[in-house]
């Protein structure tokens, strides 16, 4: 008996002392924020409490089964109650639960405290991409899946970050409190980055709040974690955490680029330029539904040889700008710049055998957007 107990104790000790690093890939990540570390240690504490309870309860049960078995002539006891034992086994779980609830509540309270943020970012889920808006900074962009189509279709070798890479990551400064305001333009999405311990629903008509203060520069990856339709698996989240100085540089560059984009709407654009830019926009925003070759798929109509679209350029622009209610066709009024709308409409009217010859100028679109905005 004594050797058996020693053996069990020895086994337990080695299990407890085995470095957690061994569990890498099985366990949740420790993460890179104070909150993520709190959550991780809560998880581990509660896990070990469960292990200890399990060992005691099942140990007592197996010991009793073995020691007092029928073949050894054990007789069942027939007493009815034992109030003090019952009080003890009711009070102990109560104390354990309260003991777990106190630190868990403290962490939850901290998670909900979005006050005094250094930076506010609006995160909008769209089928099927994320849009990030740096509030008060005039910087906004959409973050699309960066994995090439060949890898998804199985004709290319899958990369290291297959379906976990985007064209433009969310760039955040380390050491600053960043408030995330999450919402959605269409259906419910959920913004999840395990290393930041953030997993928050993005719901149309609601604004949910969360916050992060990242401690280490690096690239942190996550996914949409609320089934949101066909390309749910194709709208990953990538956060690039950089030093505050680098962040300021980046923000200045983005502002500059946004200003240039806005002013470039005034000039005349050549057909080639529009087509090149349009193909880029089409590839990142339109191709997931209307397909790379413009042939459409399922409910998503073909654009190649689409008579209604080719006959009426205003109708075409209207659909891109305002979307089509009741369908998956989103409004791109706030997602695309005038230049991008002009380019993508031009591209769609002149690609895949469409030969309208129309080139839509960004200035026309800018005017139209201004009219509609009133």
């Amino acid at each position: 008996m004594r050797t058996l107990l020693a053996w069990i104790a020895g086994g337990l000790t080695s299990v407890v002392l085995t470095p957690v690093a061994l569990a890498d890939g099985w366990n949740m990540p420790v993460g890179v924020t104070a909150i993520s570390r709190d959550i991780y240690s809560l998880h581990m504490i509660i896990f070990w409490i469960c292990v200890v309870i399990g060992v005691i309860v099942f140990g007592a049960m197996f010991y009793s089964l073995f020691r007092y078995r029928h073949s050894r002539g054990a007789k069942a006891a027939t007493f009815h109650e034992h109030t003090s034992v019952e009080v003890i086994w009711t009070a102990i779980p109560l104390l354990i639960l309260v003991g777990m609830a106190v630190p868990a509540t403290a962490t939850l309270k901290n998670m909900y405290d979005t006050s005094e943020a250094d930076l506010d970012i609006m995160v909008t889920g769209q089928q099927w991409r994320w849009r990030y808006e740096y509030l008060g900074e005039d910087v906004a962009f959409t973050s699309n899946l960066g994995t090439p189509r060949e890898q998804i279709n199985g004709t290319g070798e899958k990369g290291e970050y297959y379906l976990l890479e985007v064209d433009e990551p969310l760039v955040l400064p380390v050491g600053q409190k960043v408030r995330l305001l999450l919402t959605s333009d269409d259906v419910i999405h959920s913004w999840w980055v395990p290393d930041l311990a953030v997993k928050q629903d993005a719901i149309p008509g609601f604004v949910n709040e969360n916050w992060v203060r990242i401690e280490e520069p690096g690239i942190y990856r996550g996914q949409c974690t609320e089934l949101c339709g066909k390309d749910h698996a194709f709208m990953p989240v990538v956060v690039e955490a950089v030093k505050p100085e680098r962040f300021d540089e980046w923000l200045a560059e983005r502002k500059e680029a946004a200003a240039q984009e806005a002013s470039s709407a005034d000039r005349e654009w050549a057909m080639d330029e529009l087509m090149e830019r349009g193909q880029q926009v089409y590839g990142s925003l339109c191709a997931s539904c209307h397909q790379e070759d413009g042939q459409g798929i399922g409910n998503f109509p073909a654009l190649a040889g689409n008579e209604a679209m080719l006959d009426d350029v205003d109708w075409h622009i209207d659909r891109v700008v305002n979307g089509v209610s009741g369908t998956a066709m989103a409004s791109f009024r706030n997602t695309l710049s005038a230049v991008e709308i002009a380019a993508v409409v031009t591209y769609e009217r002149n690609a895949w055998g469409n030969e309208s010859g129309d080139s839509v100028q960004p200035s026309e679109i800018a005017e139209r957007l201004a009219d509609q905005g009133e």
Partner: protein
Amino acid sequence: MWQAIKSVLAAFLGVQKDARRREDFASNRPGTFIAAGLLVGLVFVLLVAFVAVLAAR
């Protein structure tokens, strides 16, 4: 009344002596137990609210 409150507290915990239970059921005044139940329930709710207010500060 004190007897009823003690029984209600025991019921909150989910543990009661069989002898005490028999004694309670021998009484023919259920109103006392209902009143004690409502009273202890109210105290419990206030207690939880108080803890929540403390925690939220």
